């Protein structure tokens, strides 16, 4: 075991530790397979992306992956209750998804609302707002 560690150390001293990680971009339906090359754990090349968004996605995916969170919030309006679909206005760190869900699940709103309205600002200190994905009017389907 010790010997193996020494060997690894030797390798690291003699030449940089090069690795290539394949990331499948999920920004759009093209599903580009992007190869990210690392030297000593630092990104030095990104290849295979079909657009600029791909490069950004692949870099993020290796350092701090982000996802757009979508869920629902209960809205009271008149004597009815509606489920309002909401989303984070931008992707938030993947590690914060569960924490954000806990906050959103406890929230209750009073209607009406317009699509795009901020319903929770700066969710969990991410700097990202949670916004309404539709308008709630009296004639809409209540639950």
């Amino acid at each position, binding site marked *: 075991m010790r010997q193996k560690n020494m060997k690894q150390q030797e390798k690291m001293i003699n030449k940089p530790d090069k690795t290539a990680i394949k990331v499948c971009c999920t920004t759009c339906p093209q599903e580009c397979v992007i190869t990210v090359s690392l030297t000593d754990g630092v990104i030095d090349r990104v290849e295979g992306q079909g657009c600029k968004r791909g490069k950004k996605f692949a870099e993020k995916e290796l350092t701090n992956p982000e996802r757009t969170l979508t869920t*629902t919030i209960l809205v009271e309006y008149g004597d009815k209750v509606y489920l309002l679909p909401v989303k984070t206005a931008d992707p938030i760190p*993947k590690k914060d998804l569960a924490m954000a869900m806990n906050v959103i*699940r406890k929230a209750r709103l009073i209607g009406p609302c317009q699509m795009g309205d901020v319903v929770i600002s700066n969710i969990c200190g991410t700097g990202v707002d949670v916004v309404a*994905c*539709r308008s709630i009017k009296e004639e809409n*389907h209540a*639950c």
Partner: protein
Amino acid sequence: MKQLDYDVVVIGGGPAGMAAALKANEKGATVAIIERNDELGGILNQCIHSGFGLSYFKQELTGPEYAELFINRVKDSDIDVYLNTMVIDLAPDQRITAVNQDGMLVLAAGAIVLAMGCRERTRGAIKIPGSRPAGVLTAGLAQRYVNIENRKPGERIVILGSGDIGLIMARRLTLEGMQVLGVYELMPYANGLYRNIKNCLDDFDIPLHLSTTVTNIIGYPHLEAVEVAKVDENFAVIDETREVIACDTLLLSIGLIPENELSQNSGVGLNPRTNGPLVDEELATDQPGIFACGNVLHVHDLVDNVTLEAEQAGTAAAVYALEQKAAVSENRPAENKATITISPGENVGYTVPAKLTIPPQKPIRILFRVRTPLDQAAVVIHTGTEIFYQGKVQAYKPSVMEAVALHPEELNRLNESDEPITVSVREVKK
């Protein structure tokens, strides 16, 4: 009984129906949308995840946002919308009979656009043995319960089928605090889009079991467990791999069927490969004046493609209705068009359109799906003797709908022969 008359009547107020109605209206036709639900938007209203609109709106939207953008356009137009209204018959003479709380409606239409969408395959379609308890439901029904009706389907969930709705529900139920034990797929590959496997399963460490299926449903009156087992390459159950998994909910995400009972009443011929109407390049069915678009025609994976297809159908329906009106007033005889068949060849499951008017006047788009995943293959469009089009070498997956655009000049030679054209995807050796 109320009698109404429109140039174009659109059956269904989802993404396909709204886009078709808007285009028909833009072309100068009087238009009505008939919708059985209490609001427009169709299935988009319950698809609260994002990923819609990337190609059509050039931005990532959720289903409800995509729907609302279209609902607002419909509201701003002079399209008549009949909500809570169910079409109960579409007669061969194109008379539409519908019912709502005011009673019966009869609509006469110059042209009809079928935009009724599709429904989910249920347990009966794949004949899972076992008891018949509560707790076995389709993924889309669970989606409606959770995202619209504020109801929880269960606590411990097993999902059969790796279709996109099943994958998306795996993530949704996990986020809402339910335990998704695994997704089981009969085929040796996943059926959903890769982005959904990654973002919905891998992100939440939900296992995907390929070549595995549910072989028994256990418990009554409520589901208590399912038995799963691996299958061999001939889909025969491997007995020694049978395993019982305790759960209270089984979600089925095992495919969609275009909803064509009404179309059949009117005599519209169906394509057995898609279960949708047989259409030409204008999306006209074999019944004059009846057009089809969206998931009632063939099941799409992206709503952006539904919108584009529906805009084409709406335009064609308006042009047809307005031309017919003019022809009747000028006493012109109806034109007779010659068509040839487009058939799926090697590795191709189906094509839309399935027939082509000759000589072609405009560029045409042929949509198709492959039957099995292919790593390196190229699409070839040919007759028995001649190749018209050869595509680039690329990977193909059954979950992704592909399109080929052909220019009229590429198809000019077709005038001379009646041979059907075939769309094949041929494997290319590395």
